[in-house]
Structure formats: structure tokens, C-alpha cells
């Protein structure tokens, strides 16, 4: 009988083929897709996030763990969709207008996926209009905005204002982050939350969802 812990362990070590094999085996053993997701994949990504935050893991190790997570997710996704266990929370993320940095954004996206959210990545250099359009169309529970340049920090503000003018600001929670962003700045521009790193972004998103 496969223990989901083994899946988590192999995910942490970035063993994509092994994760795939174990997930398949676990299903044969009768574990539910939801259980494998939670106790295997999400649990593993949690550890990866914690280690990255503590500077024990380097970026390539996070990327290879995320690849392993995807190998498992590819098998689980269709089953989860059928069983009704599919992700219930939609998280949208993009890097703001004028900003092309996407590494941090991608890590946040991966951790959110790892935490069981449905992630909608709207890409880089996302204009306020594009945020508005995407929010209207996809109706995410949380919108994440990432900015890495001091010169693009104001784009967060204009994006939030655009969401306000379009009347969709209050339909979603807004989480922001990126190296130059601070808690203070988040309050100034009227975001709902700020997270300093990808692992805390997951915690913060969960906290914001509680407030709904």
C-alpha cells in the first residue's frame, strides 16, 4: 500500500517519473484523488516552500519539484474533475504593466497550484485594462499582482483603480508582492494583502478567503 508521504518525499526530491508512478500505484491501491493531492502533492510543495523561504532550497530545486508536482497533477486532474473534488478556489496572477519579471510570479503560481488552487496565469506586462477584462471573464476569488521594479509599482495602483472603476474591485481579493513591495505600500494602494514570498502568499490567500 502506497503511503502519500512517499509521494511527498519524491516530489520534494524532484523525482517526476517516480511521483507519476507512485500516484498511479496509489490510485490502484484505492486512495482517492483528493487524498493523494492533499497528503502527497500539496504536502510536498508545502515543504518545498518552507525550505525555499528558509534559504535551504535553491531556485532550480523548486522548479524541479514543481515539475514533479505537475507529473502527478496530470494524472489527478481528470479524475478530480470527475469526482467533483476539483479546485474550488480560482487564483489569478500576473506581472503588472511595464514589468517583464516572471520568475517570482511563476513560483507564486506553482505554490498556489501546489496548495490546490486553480491558477489562471495572465502573464507579464499586464495592463490595467487586461486585468479588468480577465477578472470579468474568469471571476477569480483572488487576484495576484507582482511587480519587481520600483518604476512599475505604480502600475499596481492603476490596476486596482481600473478594477474599481469597472465595478469589479469588491468581487475579488487583491494580493500583491514582489521584491520592492511592502505591507505599507499594499495598504496605501488599497490591496487586501501583501506577501513577501511564495509560501507566505499561499497563507495570505487562505487568510483573505476566510474573510469572505
Amino acid at each position, binding site marked *: 500500500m502506497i503511503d502519500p508521504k512517499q509521494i511527498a518525499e519524491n516530489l520534494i526530491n524532484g523525482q517526476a517519473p517516480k511521483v507519476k508512478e507512485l500516484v498511479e500505484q496509489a490510485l490502484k491501491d484505492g486512495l482517492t484523488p483528493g487524498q493523494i493531492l492533499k497528503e502527497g502533492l500539496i504536502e510536498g510543495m508545502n515543504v518545498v516552500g518552507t525550505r525555499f523561504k528558509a534559504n535551504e532550497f*535553491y*531556485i*532550480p530545486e523548486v*522548479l524541479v519539484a514543481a515539475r514533479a508536482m505537475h507529473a502527478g497533477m496530470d494524472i489527478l486532474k481528470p479524475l478530480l474533475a470527475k469526482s467533483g473534488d476539483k479546485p474550488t478556489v480560482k487564483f489569478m496572477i500576473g506581472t503588472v504593466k511595464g514589468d*517583464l519579471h516572471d*520568475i517570482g510570479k511563476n513560483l507564486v503560481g506553482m505554490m498556489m497550484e501546489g496548495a490546490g488552487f486553480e491558477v489562471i496565469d495572465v502573464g*507579464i*506586462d499586464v495592463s490595467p485594462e487586461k486585468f479588468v477584462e480577465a477578472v470579468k471573464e474568469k471571476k477569480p476569488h483572488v487576484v495576484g499582482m507582482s511587480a519587481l*521594479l*520600483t*518604476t512599475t*509599482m505604480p502600475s499596481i495602483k492603476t490596476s486596482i483603480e481600473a478594477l474599481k472603476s469597472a465595478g469589479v474591485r469588491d468581487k475579488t481579493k487583491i494580493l500583491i508582492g514582489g*521584491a*520592492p513591495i511592502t505591507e505599507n505600500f499594499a495598504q496605501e494602494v488599497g490591496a487586501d494583502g501583501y506577501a513577501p514570498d511564495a509560501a507566505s502568499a499561499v497563507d495570505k490567500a487562505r487568510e483573505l478567503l476566510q474573510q469572505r
Partner: protein
Amino acid sequence: MLIIGEKINSTRQRINRALISKDSHYIQQVAVDQVANGAQVLDVNCGINIKNEPELMSWLVRIVQEKVKVSLVIDSPNPDALEAGLKVHQGSAIVNSITAEKNRYEKILPLVKKYQAKVIALTIDEKGMPRTARERFDLAKKLVKVTAEHGIPAKDVYIDSLVHPVSTEPQQVTEFLEALRLIKTLPDVQTICGLSNVSFGLPNRSLLNATFVAMVLCSGLDAAIIDPTDKSIRSAIKAAEALLNRDQYCASYIAAHRESKL
């Protein structure tokens, strides 16, 4: 190779604190230290302080040049801050930077011309950052064309085709090296890059940076923005220049050895 010191940059906590408190003494010390370690030009950046960047840049350029007699790379995306720095700069400055985005170069190139400066041109356009060597090369050609149209000769243009961290984009380093080789086929144009990006997210960055500098020198890099106080990078530059016949009779390599600087 032209060595440009990177350390006076407001993304570094200690520098940013010195900028806020106008601690000229500390900043001048960092300037002197870099020049003593072989920097021929210093990059100056105060961009984190977005509110009074032009005023700060003017102050920064003055206090640095008061202490060291070198040219500066004025590093800001803000045309007003660039002009504030250029106004007080002595000698020929290098503007950091333009991109192939029209709204950006149309504001900045007239300044470059007016102050007879040189300019760093990043291979980025409205579509973003290119992934392949060929796309970088095409953007470099476009940049040489638009700078020429503004009366700036190719020899005063430094093309920066953007180094990505190998930790996140493992295939980008080889594309970058190939782009350097292609860009060096254009007459007179110079090449430049910030080095330390390459090692971002990995341990023992100094080893990666030193190895990378040897590679970029081999591919034709003319100028690099580095930490000149990092001995392994400095030594790797000396060794690579000697090996590539860019150091006649290995004179500079031998001298560095005698002074125990390798």
C-alpha cells in the same frame, strides 16, 4: 575589457540607507574601494527612491566624482533623473539605458546627444524580451539604426542583450553567448552586460560569475558591470584576457600576479 563597478546601487540595502541619509562619506568609500580594485567606470543608481530620484542623482554624481576621477554610468529608467545626472557629470558619461521601445528612446536619445554621452541599449522592445540569439541580434541592429538616426555613432553604443539567471532559464546562457558573437559582427558597436544576474538563485555565485566572465570574454564582450572587489571575478578576467590575446605579452596578468592580486 571595460570594468564597471556595480556597487553604488540603491537595491543594495546599505547604499539605499546612505542615499536616504545623504551619507556621502560611505558612498565615496564604496567608490574609492571599487576604483582601487580596478573599476574604470562606476555605475550609479538611486532608483528605489522614486519620489526625488532626479535630485538624488544629481547629488550622487557630484559626490562620487568629487572623490574619484572616473566616468560614471548613470543608471535609471527615468529621463529626468538621467538628465539631472548628465547635467553635473564631468567628462563623457554612459547612459543606462534605452530599449528598442519608441517612447523610451525618443525621450532619452536627445539627452545622450546633447550631453555627448555614450548609451547602453537593452535588447527589449514592445513585445518584451527576446528568447533567441537571432531575435537579440535583430533588436541590436534596430538599436544601432535608431541611435544613428539620433546622431550617435555606433562606437558609443553598448548593446546589452540581457543575461538571465541560469537557475531559472538554463538554455538562455548559450543563447546570450551566441548573440554576443552575432552582435560583434556589426561594425564598431560595443557589447556590455551585468554579470551577476547569471548566478542568481544558486550557491557559490562568485564561482559561477568568474566562469561566466571567461565565457563572455571569449564571445566578445567589451564591458561588464561587476563587483570589482570580488577577487575570483577579477582574476578570471585577467586570465581570460591573457588567454585570448587581449593582454599583450600577458603583461597585465604578470603584473597582477606580482602584486598578489590574482
